[in-house]
């Protein structure tokens, strides 16, 4: 069982919350202070990727994160539920507003209008998949597995836990 699990509505605003939780749990699990910035950035990248995939394919489904203190390793798994590769070719219809409403918070109207898409004309010049490249530069152990039910990104860092479950 994961030490801490988080599920959040796929909105960019919640990615920060996910980062903060992951950093706090990593610290509690004994991850070295010098590595916490890497945990924060890698988890943020994984969550940003998952949020974008959900917003395109299944905006009503939450993004899930599992953080597990395994004693010598602190393991984070970010799972999306987007069918097929998250980098599905253009032409896949984004969710319609009506479908998203159930998962939107009451103040959803103030949320940013869109997750930036790679290659659009809005000044985003970073290609899709760049976030994963950043993750692999940050975590020394990264496993990406893609199934028909979604993509999971597993990352881990060394920890010196003295707080393993009793």
């Amino acid at each position, binding site marked *: 069982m994961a030490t801490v699990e988080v599920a959040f509505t796929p909105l*960019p*605003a919640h990615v920060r919350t996910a980062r903060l939780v992951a950093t706090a749990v990593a610290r509690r699990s004994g991850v070295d202070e010098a590595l916490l910035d890497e945990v924060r950035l890698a988890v943020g990248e994984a969550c*940003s990727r998952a949020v*974008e995939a959900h917003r395109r394919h299944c905006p009503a489904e939450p993004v899930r994160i599992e953080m597990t203190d395994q004693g010598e390793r602190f393991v984070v798994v970010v799972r999306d539920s987007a069918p097929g590769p998250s980098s599905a070719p253009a032409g896949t219809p984004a969710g319609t507003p009506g479908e998203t409403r159930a998962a939107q918070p009451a103040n959803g109207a103030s949320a940013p209008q869109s997750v*930036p898409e790679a290659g659009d004309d809005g000044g*985003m*010049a970073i290609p899709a998949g760049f976030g994963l490249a950043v993750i692999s530069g*940050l975590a020394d152990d990264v496993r990406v597995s893609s199934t028909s039910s979604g993509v999971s990104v597993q990352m881990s860092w060394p920890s010196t836990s003295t707080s393993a479950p009793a």
Partner: protein
Amino acid sequence: MDLKLGHYNKDGIEVVDVEGEIDVYTAPRLRELLIDLVNKNNYQLVVNMEKVEFLDSTGLGVLVGGLKRVRAHDGSLDLVCTQERILKIFRITGLTKVFGIHGTVDAAIAAKKSEN
């Protein structure tokens, strides 16, 4: 901490002060500001990142997008950053070769002026 943006002109160069976290949520605001500045014919930009606490690939994308826009007008976009945690992200992505990165706003402005 959310994102705070400000900008001012110094010696003909537009300096953008960024404070807080640049991520998937806040990056669109920085993108809009950069687009707005370019649309107002500011092609020599310095983005001061000394007070940036967090930067992810979305933020990098906005900076690269800004660079593309000013270069289309023969301009340039330089950065001010001395924080190791932020510099590391530019380093692992190879973007240290793409941006001029300086220690102070004055150094960035001086470098730009010597280029022109």
